[in-house]
Each structure stands twice: as structure tokens, then as C-alpha cells.
């Protein structure tokens, strides 16, 4: 009786022993994200190098987490940064506050900011989670998680 009950209890366990595992070997393997997945932000430039962002702060207004800071300045003939009259001298996103809602992307009248597919954003230092404009304009650096002994996990 008791053996039968024990086996009954293990039924689910044994059944799953025969199935292929749902988990994958992250970080060596990664689950593909959906096309509309909202990950790390990216600021964009035109092909001629001028930034799309004009520092209008509409993303700041839209942000429910209040994690964006924009300080704008005027473009001058010898220092033309964006295509408009003004540009963002400072553009910072505090990733530790960001809730990845994507409102900034929706608010942006110039399609200057988008939310991309990177999600490996962890840092050892909280200060490093404040992304500056230069970081946001660049490709996301490949972050490689470290093993305890300091070597890279993916070899």
C-alpha cells in the first residue's frame, strides 16, 4: 500500500524524467526573444553622423519611472550634433529605474530612441547602470558573465 502510494507520488517525477528539459544552458545558449521584446535602449544617428535626437525631452515627459535625464543645447555651425536646432548635450537613462515600458520610444517624434533586444544589463556597480549618451549611441557591448574563478563562462 505504502509502496503504491509512494510510486503514485513519484508518477509526475518519473514522467518528466523521460521528457526533454525545458531549461536551456544559459549563458551558452539563449532563448530567442519576441520581435517586439523591449530590452536595452539605443539612440540612433542618421547616415551622415548627425544624431536623430534633438533633446526635446518628450521621452522624459512620457517616462513613468522618471529615469531619463536630458539637457539640451543649441547646435552651432561649428558644432552641429543633431539635425534639428537643438541637440541633447546630456542624455542619460538610469537602467536601475527603467521598467522597460517603451513609452519613450512611443513618445519620440524623431524615432531617435528604440528599445532593442539586449537584456544582459547586470553590473557589479550601481553607478554603471546610468547609461550616458555615448553608451546609448553605441552598440551594446557583449557582456560575458564570469565564473567564480574569473574565467568567462562561455569559454
Amino acid at each position, binding site marked *: 500500500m505504502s509502496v503504491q502510494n509512494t510510486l503514485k507520488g513519484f508518477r509526475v517525477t518519473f514522467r518528466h524524467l523521460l521528457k526533454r528539459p525545458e531549461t536551456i544552458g544559459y549563458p551558452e545558449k539563449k532563448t530567442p526573444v519576441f520581435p517586439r521584446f523591449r530590452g536595452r535602449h539605443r539612440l540612433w544617428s542618421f547616415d551622415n553622423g548627425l544624431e536623430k535626437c534633438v533633446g526635446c525631452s518628450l521621452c522624459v515627459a512620457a517616462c513613468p519611472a522618471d529615469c531619463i535625464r536630458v539637457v*539640451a543645447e*543649441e547646435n552651432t555651425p561649428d558644432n552641429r550634433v543633431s539635425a534639428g536646432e537643438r541637440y541633447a548635450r546630456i542624455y542619460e537613462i538610469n537602467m536601475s529605474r527603467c521598467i522597460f515600458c517603451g513609452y519613450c520610444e512611443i513618445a519620440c517624434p524623431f524615432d531617435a530612441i528604440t528599445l532593442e533586444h539586449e537584456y544582459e544589463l547586470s553590473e557589479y556597480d550601481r553607478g554603471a547602470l546610468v547609461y550616458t549618451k555615448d553608451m546609448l549611441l553605441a552598440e551594446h557591448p557583449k557582456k560575458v558573465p564570469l565564473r567564480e574563478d574569473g574565467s568567462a563562462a562561455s569559454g
Partner: protein
Amino acid sequence: MPDYAPVDLTGTDLVEFELNGRTVKAPAGTMLVDACAANGVEVPIFCYEPRLGDPLGACRQCLVSVEGIPGLTTACSTPVAAEMMVDTVSEEVREAQDGILELLLENHPLDCPVCDKGGECPLQDRTFRFGPGESRMVEPKRHFPKPLKLSPQIALDRERCISCYRCVRFSQDVSEDGNLTMSERGGRSEITTFTGDSYNGRFTGNVIDLCPVGALTSIPYRFTSRPWDIQNTPSVCASCSVGCNTELTLREGEIKRVQGRDEPNWQVEEGWLCNVGRWGYGADQAPQRLRQPILRDGGETRECSLEEAVAAAGLVLAHEAHTTVLLGGDVTVEEAFIAKELAAGPLPDAQVGSAGVVGAALGPLRALPAAQLGDIDGADLVVVVGGDPANQHPVAELRLRKARRAGARIVLVGPRAQELESLGESIRTAPGNLAEGLTSAVAQIATVKRPLVVWDELDLDAEPDAAVVLATALGDNAAASQLELTSEVNGAGLRALGVAPHSRLVDQDLGGVLAVRANPGAGPGGDAWNRALDSGGPIVVIASHHSELTERATVVIPCSSHFEHEGVLVTAGQRAQRLRPGAAGPEQSAPGWEILIALSHRLGVALEYRSPRSAFAAATASAPALSGLDYDTLGDLGAEIATSPASDVNGAGAPRAHDGEGLPLVTGRSVFGGPEAHLSEGLVVTATGEEAVLHPAEAARLNVADANLITLNSPNGECTVRLRLDPGAPEGAVFAVRGVPGGTVESLLAPDRAPVNVTVNTA
């Protein structure tokens, strides 16, 4: 900006009319837009602005239907009448308003994301509420190069202009300079000045507030913040004693902008600001700002912490046998009160004096019914005695112009050149002859219904006999009132607290000196003050900016500017008004009152005021003129303090003799050449300097030429300034502009501003 004129629905002359099917009331003759707004119905407007005089009807946005009037009519220019039937919401009206907006937007670039007005733009707001959802316009829009620098402080974006004429009307009908116009016509219309001219003037910045779109924007504010990045704080301007009500815009700890309030103080500035009030905040971010406490210890100068500086100040002052407290003319009532308490208790054997207290002999005049600036509007005769409102109390000029437009007679009497002479009858008196010059004005005061005298305390202090003449004339007409324009912003407040003038202290051994926002070395009798300060004990300076005095001081403690602390100033018309902190100020600085309290702790007798509010409460309890006031009764708009009784009549009426050789000296100060104007980055281009003015005939006699440097010598000192010849200047006197940072004209004067003569020579 106020959109609609205030409407009094409690009066007796109300008429009933029908508004969207509802029977409502409004005073007869009120414009429909205002009558509707008072009854809770918004009619969209762009060109209508109650303060710009008669409505123009330029934008056509306020079309409404009124039964009996064919078609639609503009609500801004239709006065309300009894039994009128007004519809502001019918399909016809809605379509018309929608259509006008579509038309206005036809050439508008819709560059809201880069526009400074975006987010606080009437055009945006009204397009959302009354306008079309989308544009049918596919043709290319009108393009102009942008932005255009209309003046060093104002940027013009002609693409955004909707030709509402508000700025043009301001220039033509309010500041009356007529320098801003609309050129060309139709689709090519644009706002311009005379070819090549910059739009210069004392009040030009107001067109920025007036502009209902982003066509006129402030260059110092350009692109610094968006409306959702900022906090606005109502406060009061401390640049002159008019005390205009302002709104401070704060972003990231700094003042980014000062503008007129949405709900202006109709008794004071009506929403207008002068350019110094608007852009003077730049002085707070100037390199001359004190950011670090300084200690001078046995020849060594070093920076220290705030705590260390206060401790050192307590130490050096406590060891003096006697001490002197010098208050600037702009200390708040709270600071002055706490400083007085310090002098009465913890400070050893202390005397208090302030540069802001002038005219002990003017008591009888001050005791007469006090008027507010707003009362100038309703006067039928305005006599301006002395002073130079245009340069010294700028916004008062706009009130005088408004009164003249309303039909008041303006009489200007005084020894100074005035820029307002074209406003009415002008009697330029030689120094010493003011009483005589008042004869005609006095006769007129007796014959009119509502005379009002605007007087300058310095010019009447120099000629107290004229004050007696004036006080007698005003006393004889029960409807007469007087408005004092003090030379310092809180002069009336210091007087109400019973602070004495500081000039009596200059000849005494000062002992240890505690100077709060004071800089006597740069004021009248500066040389005498510097001698007294050099021979006295250690100097503790509490100041917001570097000055000659901070160079001499043993301890320098940086304090808040008037944009950064809470306090009360008593401004023109004896009006107590609240300053509110718009920004935090430098890290190593503190509000003046807080430093004084901390100092009291160091001096061993702790004053227990935890906030400016409690200090003000104690001040009102001790000063009869302030009794009954507290922060809540002052609120946003301030309140009048009690008129001081005419007690100080010592020496009233005795003319003051001129000291020294040569021509009598008349001096005046200009806000546009003061510290704010010179220190603020946005204003320094248009800041005025020191100069001497002579009549050409007088200059020929003295053998000095126009635009040359001349030396003026008085018994008190010497100064070198550039000469300007002005055929309008009186013969037999020299006029000199003082009060310019780094200037030397003040040194010609005696500490008590006793009238002096000067000799004039080519430098």
C-alpha cells in the same frame, strides 16, 4: 500670462445675458470673452490681452454667435449687453474656431519638439481643445532663416508667428517705444524693428511672455528646459523697490528663468517685468558669486567649511569690546530682525545701522495715506517728485504711461534728468530749488479729485523743505495719496523695524563688524567707510557675492541670494511681500537668517527661531507697523503694512546746505547699470555704465568736451567718468550716474548723502 481680465461679479452694475442657454450675469460693457470666462465658459483667444488696451480682433479665434448680429462676431471686441443671447458651442461656432486654427497652423512649422514654448504654448493647448485633428495642408510651408536675434536677449522665429500683434501692441501701447512693428503683409508678414536695429528697451522681455506661440523666446533660457522638467515658484523681484511679483523657474538646482506670473499682482506690476528683473538671475551664477566660506587668519587666506566659518565669526566677534552690525538695503525683514536681536543680546555692545534707511525728516510725508502702484491708474493727476522712475523703478514707468493713456495729467518735478519728460509737464529744478519748483504742482493738487504723488526718498531727503511743502499740499486734499519709491528694496521694512541709518556710525570706532549683505565701501562716502573699516576690528561678512568688503573681511560666509531664501520685503506702497526660494544656492552657503541664528549659538545666547516664519512672527510682535501680519495673510500677493505715525519730525523743513566748491552734484542710479545688469551673462551686453551729464553751455564754460573723461572733485572724494552733453540737462548742476559696480561716483558723496558741490576738470 493672464488670459482674461479679472471680472467683478459682485458689483451693482451687472446685466443679465444668456450664455449657451443659461442666464448669467456680468458687468455691463465687459468684453464677451471676459464675461464668458467669469461664468466658466472658455472662448479661445490669441490676440486678446486685457493689458494691451483696446482689443484688436486680429486673430479671429474668438468667433462666437450672438443673436441679432449677422454671421459670427469676435467675442474679444464685443461688449456684453443686457439680454444678449450668446452661443459659444454651436456647430457653426465650433466649425469657425476649428477653421481659424487650421488657418493659423497653415504656415506654422509644428516644430514643437524643438520649440521652447512647447508644453506651455497657448497655440498647442487651443489646437488640442478647439482645433482640427489634422491638417489638409500639403503645400510647402513658409520658410524663413531662424532664429533671428531681435535683441541680445530675444530670439525671433518668424515661421512660428501667427501675426497676433500682441508684441507690436506692447511696444506701441504699453512701453510706447514703437520700435516693434509688423512689416510686409499677408503671408509675408513678419515682426521687425527698423532695419538693422536691435529691439532695445527697458521692458522688451515682456513680449516673450506675451507671445502665444514660440515666435519670441528668451535667449538666456533657450533650450535649457522643458515645462515638465521644471518647478515654478512665485516670488518677488528684489532688483528695485517696486517689488514686482515673479515666477522663478527652477531646473536641476538652478534658476533658469524669471517671468511674470500667470496670475499677476494687479496692485503692483500687472505681470510686466523690466529686463533686469527678468534676466538679472544670471548674477547668481556669475563668477563673482561666493561659493565657499573664506577665513583670513594672520595673513593667510583659506577656504573653509560653513560650520568653521560661523564658529570663527562667533569667536572673533565675541572677543570684541563693542561691535557694529551693518545691514544692506536688501536684507529681508527676518534677517534684519534677527540681526537686531543679535545686537540686543549676544553681540557685545552692538549698534545697528543700514544703508537702506534714508530720510529721517520725511516722516510727515510718509504718514499721509499711502497709495499702491495700482492706484496710479485711477488718479487724475500724478505728480512725480524727484527720482527717475524709468531707470530706477522701471515698472512704475509703465503705470505712469498707463495713467496718462487713461487721461491723467502727469507732472514731473525734480533735479534729475528724466526719461519720462514727454509724458506731461516737466519742471526741472536746480538742486536746492525743489520746493520752489513744486509751486505749480501744489496748486494743481488742490484742484483735482484724485491726486497722487510719487516721490523719491533720496531727492526729498536732500531737500526736506520740499517734503514739507508737499506734505502740506497733500494734507489739504483728503483724496490725495502718496507713493514712496525707496532707494533700496527693503527700505520701508527696515524702517518699520526701527533700524537706524548707518551713516551715523561711520565716524565712530566700529569695533568688530558684522555686515549682512552690506557693502558700505561701495556706497555713498565709500572712502570714509573704508577708513573706518580699516581702523576697526575684525570684519565678518555675510554676503552672496564678492565685493570690496569681502576682500577686507576676516570671515566671509556665503549666504543665499534673494532667489534662494524665504523672507519678507516691504516694497513700494508699504507692501509686505514674500520671497520664496526658487533654488537651493551653492552647497557651501545658507540662508542669511540661518547663518545669523547659527552665529547666535556660537555667541552663547541662542536665538530660538526655527524658520523665517517664526522670525517674522516675532518681528511683527515687536514692530507696530507690521502687527497683524503673518505669512498666511501675506500669501501670494502681499499686504500693506500700517503707515508709521509721523513721529520723526526732527529737522523737518530745514533746507540742507551744499558742501564744497563748484557746481551742485545730483546723482541717480539705474537698475540697468546695477550689479544684476553687470553680473548677469544675458544682460551685460545692454548694461549701462557710469557717466556724468552736463548742459552744453555749462560744459563750454568749464572747458570740457563731450565723450571725454572728466574728473569730479568733492570734499568727500574724487572720481573720473565719461561726460555726456545733454541740451535737456539743467544749467548750473552736474548729474552723475552712480551705483555701477566698480564705479567711483559714490565716493563723491558723504556717508549721509549731504548735498555736495563738485569741481569739474578734464581728466
